[in-house]
């Protein structure tokens, strides 16, 4: 057991992946000497050299486009996008190339690329540094998408994503980088594309991923004080979705609330609500409710507390669900 911050767990996971497989190559802006703006790659260039930890020119299309070529040559590129808002110059490469090459080559050209993206708000940043673009990627056939919420998952899921033969967009909750937890570096991890119940309860099922898992757990804690028992599921995988644990839970509770930071309209919550409504229709006591960001341009940081779903907004949705 080691006590690690989420950021350090990612760093440790990257180091392990590089030790395990010499084909793993890291690329990104400022990831070498600086160790990344969040220090996730700290010390790796020193230990693995400049050929395996590459400070790239300032060009995201270049980072992902060359990762495609490296993958074709048998490498396993792990690229860092500095902030969520800066993935879009690479969006063309991700959507038209990374996502399609396996299908187009009928499997002759697998794309074992990991695209790490620190995402979400709550750090008081200027614009383009607080976005939650996961739905764009989850909507894209050919990509797999995961979001981690805690140090143990960060450590294990990153290694699993890197080892995985398909491209994985790997979302890291930047405001939780400094959160600490015990990580068992030897325990066998659950499968990468699986959801997990992280708190048991009977009254309402709360679904969250990434930074919102902590918020959901806090809400469950607060609800308990009021005599309400919330079950919290950490989705972990956004594409493919693993809804079996969710459905099992909703069949017991009859109520479901999905929480994410991303804008509510056409977010992951919409898909999940549709599926849970279909599969659990006869068990539902209330419609599946969504708590998300407003459908507005991400606001300046003085307003982000009001924009981001918080404990109160989650509990308010729980109240509404219970009120049906």
């Amino acid at each position: 057991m080691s006590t690690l911050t989420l950021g350090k767990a990612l760093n440790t996971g990257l180091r392990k992946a590089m030790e395990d497989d010499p084909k793993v190559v890291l690329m990104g802006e400022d990831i070498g000497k600086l160790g990344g703006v969040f220090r996730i790659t700290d010390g790796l260039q020193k230990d693995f050299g400049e050929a395996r930890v590459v400070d790239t020119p300032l060009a995201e299309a270049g980072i992902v486009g060359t990762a495609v070529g490296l993958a074709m040559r048998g490498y396993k590129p792990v690229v860092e996008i500095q902030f969520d808002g800066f993935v879009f110059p690479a969006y063309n490469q991700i959507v038209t190339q990374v996502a399609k090459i396996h299908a187009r080559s009928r499997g002759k050209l697998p794309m074992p690329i990991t695209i790490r993206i620190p995402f979400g708000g709550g750090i008081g940043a200027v614009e383009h540094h607080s976005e939650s673009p996961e739905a764009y990627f989850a909507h894209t056939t050919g990509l797999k998408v995961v979001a981690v919420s805690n140090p143990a998952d960060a450590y294990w899921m990153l290694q699993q994503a890197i080892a995985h033969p398909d491209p994985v967009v790997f979302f890291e909750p930047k405001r939780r980088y400094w959160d600490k937890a015990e990580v068992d570096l030897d325990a066998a991890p659950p499968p990468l594309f699986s959801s997990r119940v992280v708190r048991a309860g009977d009254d309402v099922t709360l679904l969250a991923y990434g930074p919102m898992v902590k918020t959901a757990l806090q809400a469950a804690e607060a609800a308990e004080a009021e005599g309400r028992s919330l079950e919290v599921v950490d989705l972990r995988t956004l594409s493919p979705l693993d809804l079996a644990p969710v459905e099992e839970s909703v069949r017991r509770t009859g109520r479901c609330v999905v929480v994410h930071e991303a804008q509510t309209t056409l977010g992951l919550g919409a898909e999940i609500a549709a599926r849970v409504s279909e599969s659990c229709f006869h068990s539902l006591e209330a419609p599946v409710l969504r708590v998300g960001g407003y459908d507005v341009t991400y606001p300046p940081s003085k307003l982000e507390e009001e924009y981001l779903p918080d404990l109160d907004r989650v509990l308010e949705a729980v109240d509404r669900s219970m009120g049906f």
Partner: protein
Amino acid sequence: MTAVREMVDPVPGAAAPHLPAQPDLVQLLTPEGERVEHPEYSLDVTDEELRSLYRDLALVRRWDVEATALQRQGELGIWASLQGQEAAQIGAGRALGEADMAFPTYREHGVAWTRGVDPLDVISLFRGNDLGGWDPVATRFNLYTVVIGAQCLHATGYAMGIQRDTADAAAIAFLGDGATSQGEVNEAFIWAATFDAPVVFFCQNNQYAISVPIERQSKVPLFQRAAGFGFPGVRVDGNDVLAVLAVTRAALARAREGSGPTFIEAFTYRMGAHTTSDDPTRYRLADELEEWKLRDPIARLKAHLSRSGKADAEFFAGVDAEGDELAARIRKGTLEMPDPAGTEMFDHVYAEQTEEIAAQRAAFLAYQEGFEK
């Protein structure tokens, strides 16, 4: 990797006499403050103008220092310092005509100053109160663009508009050395060249893109790239406000008369951290900074002004006092800046408000009021 290091251009200036001179570097004022001539770029400036250039340089630095202090004290979320780049920005900004339109990055506080933007309207962005407080139409100073390079295409498109209007104006895009690697920036060069757009690309090569040195972005001096796109490239001493003014004026005149774009590489140095979130000790040596301190853009003009008798101690004391007043105004204005109303975020998403957002705004208000009760 040593081979890459060797192609780095030597830095100009007296502190590095061991380094060969840069024949391509346009300079009108040496680091010692000596006025020199250049065969292509001459500049007629009155003593009055020289003093007002000094005043601009000194005041934007004072603003910058105050903003950095405010950030350290928790009053700003972040600050991107322009220290070391004052001459590049004031020189370029002062070259602009009223009808010209500027497209800044996030560091062009000096250019903002020359466009009459209130420092507090820039501060409000870094404080997290808004996404840029000034009016980009009235000031002809676009909002800051954080996404690297995107503004180069906007400037080019704006210039294409100027062309269609047959207006006597030009656009100027500011960009960093790192930005030159972006695909969009290279697309802007191609568009500007093929359409002879009246646009100037003003690149401040401050030697770094956060931690990444210029050699990682380019194998050739940046100004030489322009030739491949089919327009002139000029390297100017970015710490020499007079040379920057002359070169930028010439490029803007060329653009306005229909001769197309120019790429200006202002060779300079970022004296501070990338932003207040950055720790440059992790990636660059203190020696380098010390060398560049000797090429300080403000000290150089001050030396020239005092040695030539164009300004006296009283003048400098006056500018200092004005700087202190400015700093005090910035501090007071920052501390007194009201927080934005939560409803603000719903109000400007579209020109025509949608029912969906209007409903969310109403729900937001009702929700907020629920807490007040």
